[in-house]
């Protein structure tokens, strides 16, 4: 099984430790992982802003870069969702279809493909889990609070393998953090207000760290907290799985 690791552009630039943890974790689990150097972005920023046609060359580049791997794994539900859902714009060649089907968010990969059931790691802290929307409702990484079904969360499942981890229960278990890509800038006032409310929910429950599957949400929440001198650290769940301590 040959895995192509996709590290989204903002993770590459601002959160390299998340990329490193993803790579190391997969390798420690015995996977053959390759990071294609020519990768850039999945094209989501343009598409969500209404310029999906402009994003086509980026989509094509993505497909060229990744079509030879058995799985394309990314520590981002949002980008994965974009590839799976919105690459319907391209002519559906074998390569395109392969890339769309085999792009998995890291949590999906660990749960559905690797069937991970144990991990060597310890994290003796109270964790607030932020369920990022695109992973949650786009990839169904967890049961959304709107739907009537038995509850599950793939990210929580893998985190539960970590020793001594504890979760706080939020008032609003899966409300959006307000990032939303260009929304964060277009609708600055609401975006920040949503972020503040999200942080408050975690804070009031005594979360020592806010964890998510998408660094974009965390970048937004962290940005607000740093400005307001609140210091709840943020982490991608893969960092915790891979043994990073606070």
């Amino acid at each position: 099984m040959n895995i192509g690791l996709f590290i989204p552009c903002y993770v590459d630039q601002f959160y390299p430790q998340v990329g490193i943890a993803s790579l190391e974790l997969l390798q420690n689990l015995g996977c053959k992982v390759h990071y294609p150097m020519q990768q850039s972005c999945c094209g989501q920023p343009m598409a969500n802003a209404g310029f999906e046609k402009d994003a086509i060359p980026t989509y094509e580049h993505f497909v060229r870069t990744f079509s030879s791997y058995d799985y394309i794994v990314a520590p981002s539900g949002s980008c994965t969702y974009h590839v799976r859902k919105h690459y319907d714009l391209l002519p559906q060649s074998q390569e395109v279809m392969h890339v769309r089907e085999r792009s998995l968010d890291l949590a999906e990969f660990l749960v559905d493909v690797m069937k991970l059931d144990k991990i060597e790691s310890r994290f003796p802290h109270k964790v607030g889990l932020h369920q990022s929307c695109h992973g949650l409702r786009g990839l169904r990484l967890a049961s959304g609070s709107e739907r009537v079904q038995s509850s599950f969360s793939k990210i929580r499942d893998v985190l539960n393998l970590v020793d001594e981890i504890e979760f706080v229960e939020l008032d609003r278990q899966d409300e959006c953090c307000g990032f939303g890509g260009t929304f964060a800038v277009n609708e600055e006032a609401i975006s920040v207000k949503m972020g503040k409310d999200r942080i408050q929910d975690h804070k009031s429950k005594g979360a020592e760290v806010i964890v998510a599957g998408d660094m974009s949400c965390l970048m937004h929440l962290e940005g607000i907290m740093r400005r307001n001198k609140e210091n709840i650290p943020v982490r991608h769940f893969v960092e915790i799985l891979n043994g990073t301590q606070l």
Partner: protein
Amino acid sequence: MSKHPQKAADFIANEARTDWHDQSLWVVREKRDKLAKGIAEWEELRELASQIKDHTLSHLDHYLEEFEKNALANGVQVHWAKDAETHNHIVHDILQKQKVRRLVKSKSMLTEECGLNPFLEKQGIEIIDTDLGERIIQLKDEPPSHIVMPAIHLKKEEIGELFHEKLQTEKGATDPQYLTEAARQHLRSHFLQADAALSGVNFAVAETGGVTVCTNEGNADMGIHLAPVQIHCMGLEKVIPRQKDLGVFTRLLARSATGQPITIYTSHHLKPKPGGEMHIVIVDNGRSEQLGREDFRNSLKCIRCGACMNTCPIYRRSGGHSYDYTVPGPIGSILTPGKDLKKYSDLPFASTLCGSCTDVCPVKIDIHQQLYKWRQIIAEEGHLPKAKAREMSMAAKVLSSPKAYRRATKWMRRLMRFLPRPLLYLNRNVWGKQRELPQVPRQTFKDWYKHEGNES
């Protein structure tokens, strides 16, 4: 800054009020969750409702004709209005023929959409909204801010103040029971004097030619029972095929709307009362155009429960008025561009595409997907600022070429690391107004991988 963001920012400027508004609607959403979860087959029910609506929409002409035929056979007078103006004239004609001076009205967002009140008032007809929420905003001379709870944006203190001014209640009174009682007394005289009653329609059953109206206060019934002339105005998408389909929708509607098992009154109107007149006005007003838009047609499945508004984190924090249309919130944002793409071009962007609206919708409208699709059309037709289009096409070039990406990010990183803070947080940096930029690490992942990443 375009309109929604500006209005939202104004709303949020009063943060305590925003919190109150957000929380009031969240309570409704929680009530809805509780009741929905009480029905094990909820998701199947949604699917069924969605299929019935899909089926109806693809045979809409057939069902509308069947509905008309059966309504006529029941002795109902059926009218067709292609737009808001025609609708208003039809209602006015009916009233004029019967020399109606006073009309009581209940539960109709459609007449709001058509601007019926100001139109009739201009013709010298007194028109009284009889549902409490509607009456409040009518007294306040404001548009509704929610389709199910039109006055949800007003606090009880404000309502007390308004009633004191208009209905001579005690100054400073805020007790909901006292205020409701005052409104009831005030409305009673109007009910007794009205010559005609108008209501909206929740469902129109093709098989029987009857209409169903769901309310909690019973004012629609009161009006209709008392007045000799009854008028029901409906959008043409309200039709459903059979009487037995009704149960599917009534189970979903009240639970989704207010978290009740069923509305207090679910009234079926089939034929005129002895000696009375019953009219049904079927309104298009852009609906058939929407039906013709493949990507957006299923927005017509909407049963107007308002659940997408209650769940929407944007709506809850920006208030219904920020959308500037009778139907606000997520569903409003996919209906409005069909009406006026330019005027409402900002609304499909007033979303994080979190998808909560889609999952809460009892008839499974893919709301956030449609918002995404409108964005593409709006950009393509040039309704976005030119600078934005330039930015995006530049980003597209950079992101599709590994070399350009490397160059661009190198520069960005340098700027972010070495630019003095005041320069970095210039006015134009909207991100940085209330947020710090992410810290720039020494190495990107790519750099690290090149030097230290070993392939397994």
